[in-house]
């Protein structure tokens, strides 16, 4: 298996290939979100919620823009040669795992478990789950966690390639930037 292709496509493909792929991925992700009724209401968020294509596209546009702006500013601080197109490609292409997460998030099992918890609010001792449901919930949670880790790994590798980041301070800055992007995107999407 080509691990470099899987974890750092930004080191292999040209900016034009990544830009076209990034735009297509964003549109396809928004279509998937509207089709499955999954909302991307933050840079790191994927939740079940009724939505339509334009809302989904707007959310993904805000998410991409937020990551792009904070990482580009940080990138310019670290290395003045950082190019906008490389950070933009990182912001768009890295989101593939988020769109894959939408498929799992839309599973009816998660909705029924969510409904069960909501119906027993304040009375959680009487929650009634089947062992198979709990096992499936655990498995889905693990896959979702792995997809989030994959998303962050792609972002880190894209950022590292775009900026030539090497020092621990660069990666600490990246972590802070990602939190800032999450907060800003949540605020903008909720408006």
């Amino acid at each position, binding site marked *: 298996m080509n691990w470099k292709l899987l974890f750092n496509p*930004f080191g292999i493909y040209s*900016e034009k290939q990544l830009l076209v792929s990034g735009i297509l991925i964003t549109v396809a992700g928004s279509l998937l979100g509207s089709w499955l009724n999954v909302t991307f209401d933050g840079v790191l968020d994927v939740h079940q919620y009724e939505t339509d294509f334009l809302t989904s596209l707007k959310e993904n546009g805000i998410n991409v823009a937020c990551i792009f702006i904070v990482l580009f500013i940080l990138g310019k601080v670290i290395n003045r*040669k950082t190019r906008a197109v490389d950070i933009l490609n990182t912001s768009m292409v890295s989101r593939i795992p988020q769109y894959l997460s939408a498929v799992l998030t839309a599973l009816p099992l998660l909705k029924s478990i969510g409904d069960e918890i909501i119906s027993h609010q304040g009375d959680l001792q009487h929650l009634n789950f089947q062992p198979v449901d709990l096992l499936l919930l655990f498995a889905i949670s693990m896959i979702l966690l792995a997809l989030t880790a994959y998303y962050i790994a792609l972002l880190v590798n894209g950022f590292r390639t775009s900026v030539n980041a090497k020092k621990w301070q660069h990666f600490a800055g990246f972590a802070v930037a990602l939190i800032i992007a999450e907060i800003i995107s949540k605020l903008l999407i909720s408006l």
Partner: protein
Amino acid sequence: MYKYSAMKLPIVCPSCESALQVSQMKCSHCETTVNGNYELPLYLQLSREEQEFILNFFLSSGSIKEMAKQAGLSYPTMRNKMDDLIGKIENFKN
């Protein structure tokens, strides 16, 4: 891309890893030898891969984009290699 011959010029001491110096040169035609203590030129202090990188940069008319294309890598990856090499050479010079 340009490829070197199989023989590699050692640039660091295999024992203590310090930079090696030239102590003898020989004419392959008349067997005359010159002894002394000469520093390796800056270019030769670089690793074989780094020398190859610089030569390929020259042969592609100084285009990092062209080098990236030939190597099947992205532009920022190639530019990062170049920046790392510039940093290394600047360290040598200081």
